[in-house]
């Protein structure tokens, strides 16, 4: 199994009068097709780790490799290009652009990547929304949706460019238990039925126990991978 994401002795320290160590000497390898949970207490550094894995943040030391390629020497434009083509993010809060419809939101990454024709983008976005039970909401604005629907729209957007890795930061954290369960089922379906590589941050043990593997961190250190 080839590695989708790897970290090598990765450390992230926030500089300042009192430097804060967010992640310390993390060595990780996430294979293609793996369904991984990052768990740990609040403030332990789960989000920080996810930002580093998602090439949103840069390590202070060590490195992150995407598909076994070093990323530390890349410029911000090249990192943005990698995020666009290879990674998809879902956050705890839905983070949709409020002025665009659900369909338009899903199409943003496709349009930025520019590999498909306009019609093909639309067809693909509709297919994604349909697979998430959202075809009826395609023309609606985010504010017209329920919390669970917003999160499903965000998942559709994260999947827009067929990412190598789907990264989610407590995607169910802001949902009631029924919606949380639905969203988690979506992730599991993606991972198990479609072989999508998924890394999900959660502190909910119910969710994490259904993943293939749990990475547990405490105080910025990986204690159990």
């Amino acid at each position, binding site marked *: 199994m080839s590695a989708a994401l790897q970290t090598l002795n990765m450390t992230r320290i926030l500089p300042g009068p009192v430097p804060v160590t967010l992640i310390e000497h993390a060595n990780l390898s996430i294979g293609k097709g793996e369904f991984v949970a990052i768990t740990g207490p609040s403030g332990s550094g789960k989000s920080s780790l996810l930002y580093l894995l998602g090439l*949103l943040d840069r390590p202070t030391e060590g490195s992150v490799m995407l598909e076994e390629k070093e990323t530390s020497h890349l410029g911000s434009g090249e990192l943005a290009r990698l995020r666009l083509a290879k990674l998809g*993010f879902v956050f705890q809060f839905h983070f949709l652009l409020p002025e665009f419809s659900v369909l338009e939101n899903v199409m*943003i990454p496709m349009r*930025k*990547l520019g590999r498909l024709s306009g019609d093909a983008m639309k067809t693909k976005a509709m297919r994604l929304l349909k697979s998430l039970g959202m075809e009826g909401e395609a023309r609606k604005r985010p504010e017209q949706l329920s919390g669970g629907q917003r999160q499903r729209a965000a998942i559709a957007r994260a999947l827009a460019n067929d990412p190598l890795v789907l990264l989610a*930061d407590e995607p169910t954290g802001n949902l009631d238990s029924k919606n949380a369960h639905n969203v988690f089922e979506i992730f599991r379906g993606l991972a198990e039925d479609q072989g999508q590589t998924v890394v999900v941050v959660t502190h909910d043990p119910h969710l994490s126990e259904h993943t293939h593997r749990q990475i547990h961190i405490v105080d910025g250190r990986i204690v159990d991978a």
Partner: protein
Amino acid sequence: MRLIAEIAATHLTHRKRQSIVSILGVAMGVGFFIGMAALMQGFQTYFVSKIIDVWPHIIMKDEYRLPSLQPAQRQFPQGAVALHGLKPVEELRGIRDGKAVIAALNRIEGIHAAPTMRTQAFMRYGAKDVSATLVGIDPELERQVSQLERDLKVGSLNELHTAANGVILGEGLAAKLGVEAHNIITVVSPAGVILKMQVVGIFRTGITTIDNFDSYTLLKKAQILANRPNVINQIRIRLRDVGNARVVASSIESRYGYRTEAWEETYENVLGIFVIQNGIMYSSVGAILIVAAFGIFNIISTIIHEKTRDIAILKSIGVAELDIRLIFLLEGLAVGMIGTVLGWALGHALVEILASIRFNIEGFVRAEGFILNESPYHYLIAAGFALISSSLAAFLPARKAARLDPVDILRGAA
């Protein structure tokens, strides 16, 4: 690229009222510039074309630019010579060999020259007593150097020959005296000569100072009045190509030594006022555009502040810093462009309104309304100013937006 433009558009429509205010700010700057430029340049080019039209392009005067050197200074050109109690010699005024100079000038291709004897005079008619400038001319040569004949409202140049003591008055001067054609006026010169003269013509050039003070008679009569027979004290020169006036004037001056002024020098004070006028126009329009630029800076900063979360989303999706910067630059540019187009309309309307106003003024020139010159260059200059200032105003906030760290924003929101 379409995506970037769409996002920029949603931001501006989201802050509709503020956007409209910024756009109006730009529109005002552009509109006023166009209106004022049309007004200023209209008047200025009209004045200049009038001057070039009615006035000789070059005038040679019977004076020297520099006082002549004293013998002691000539003897010791390098020495420090101090002379006290000097009295300049009273020289006989007048251009020496004036006739020969005129003949020589007239032989040059593209140059016409005519002699004049210019003197001050008091004109009396009834109880009125008006001071005027009397210019003695040779009508045949004068036709070559000015448009006096064309500007005559009443009478003709030839009547100077046929009448006994013919004089042609400027319209304003005639009005001050209260005379009409064929009236006889009394002319008194500083030399003490008194002449009864018959008004044989009245002219109007449109240039107030000329119409209010100048009068013409035959060269000989002016020489009699000034008590200086055969003297010429000014040579009027007209060029085929007025653009060369300065160059030709200085080459004539260096050849003959007499002070020779191109029309630009004669009307230097007026042209200087034009420079100041233009300076005032540019700075007041500049001030409006600076205010507009602050408006744009303000709205874009506000949008960025409101939309930090959206910026983080876009960055996490993989929209590059350059694109983010472009979004906000585009917003500034859009405000600038919409403002420019509105400003063009406003400016055009302003020019139309100014053009429709009718009134009589008597400034440098006489006019029945504003003289306007609406030029496509004004529209382009205004657009250039507006677009440059709006992009500059957007530049700083756009750069700040592009540099926002999505991780900071995500941490703050989570």
